[in-house]
């Protein structure tokens, strides 16, 4: 198979045409040849290119083990964590195509500017608001309660941007909050200690929020942590509707 030592991988890598702040579509694919290694990941391949073929290649990574969420790229058309994607799994006929995440401006080559992505977490009222101070005892959240279980479903998000890159609604409506920000809002809506429920539901309602979701489920399909993102957005649709009918929106 492709994993044979001694064989060579042909890798098309997206190169932006100028340094800094270029539009996502401004650039071209450049092909590199990379020796195959056993258990090689896509991040290994990109690192090899930068170290041995072209030191000017720009990309981002940190932990290399699927914890930090900084190395996501579009590999053969699908957004993935490159550190947790084995070449064996995605290479086709000894070829790979590596591009930056969609729906975000490219800083350089494979590195995107994720500011807009995280700004939307803030706009979705993604901050916790509580009432207790550090002098008071811990709040007790019943682990078996329905709310806590809903929180458990979404809490493992590490903000890699794979869902955001895979979402067509983000592409169609640039102010759309996107799956990750709304998943965050949904975990807080279910946090029994939180006091900002009303403002949060108002923040995620409407055409830039949950009501623009078409249930394409590309986010859920692609999430490396298999979080039920579409379900979280549907939860927000139900809760905002309830608030609307009560006159609280």
């Amino acid at each position, binding site marked *: 198979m492709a994993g044979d030592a001694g064989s060579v991988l042909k890798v098309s890598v997206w190169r932006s045409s100028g340094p800094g702040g270029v539009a996502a579509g401004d650039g071209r694919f450049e092909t590199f040849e990379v020796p195959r290694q056993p258990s090689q990941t896509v991040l290994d391949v990109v690192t090899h290119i930068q170290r041995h073929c072209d030191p000017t290649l720009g990309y981002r990574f940190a932990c290399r083990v699927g914890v930090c969420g900084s190395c996501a790229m579009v590999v053969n058309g699908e957004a993935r964590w490159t550190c947790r994607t084995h070449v064996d799994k995605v290479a086709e006929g000894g070829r790979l195509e590596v591009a930056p995440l969609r729906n975000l401006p490219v800083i350089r080559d494979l590195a995107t500017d994720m500011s807009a992505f995280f700004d939307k977490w803030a706009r979705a009222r993604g901050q916790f608001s509580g009432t207790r101070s550090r002098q008071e005892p811990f709040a007790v959240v019943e682990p078996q309660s329905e709310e806590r279980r809903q929180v458990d479903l979404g809490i493992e998000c590490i903000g890699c941007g794979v869902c955001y890159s895979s979402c067509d609604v983000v592409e169609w409506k640039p102010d759309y909050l996107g799956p990750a920000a709304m998943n965050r809002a949904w975990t807080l809506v279910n946090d029994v200690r939180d006091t900002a429920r009303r403002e949060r539901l108002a923040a995620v309602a*409407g*055409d*830039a929020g949950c009501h623009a979701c078409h249930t394409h489920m590309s986010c859920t399909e692609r999430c490396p942590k298999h979080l039920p993102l579409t379900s979280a957005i549907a939860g927000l649709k139900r809760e905002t*509707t309830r608030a609307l009918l009560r006159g609280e929106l």
Partner: protein
Amino acid sequence: MSPRAQAGLWFAQRMSAVVLAFAVVVHLATMIYAVRSGLSAAEILDRTRGNLPWFLFYAGFVVAIAVHLPIGLRNVIAETLGWRGRLLEACTAALAAGLLAWGLRAAWAVYAPGGA
């Protein structure tokens, strides 16, 4: 348009969808039954002329369509053409009014006893 109003549109489209789900099942069944021996004006009008329950059914059907369709089309237009704001809302409202009038005229046409 405020996020609250947009949420209201979403809900109106879902609720009209529930009404349409029932109406379309009845409509499909009637249609499949009606075409067995070929369509003729006499046969259609025989069923609908002066028949108040059918008229009320079709009138309700039209109202639900006039709510459901413009909201859906509004989304498609906003997503593919990028229209926003006043222009989009005006088109949506005009489409709703047009469908309502045009559809109720059709329902009346097959109901009105003896023709107009």
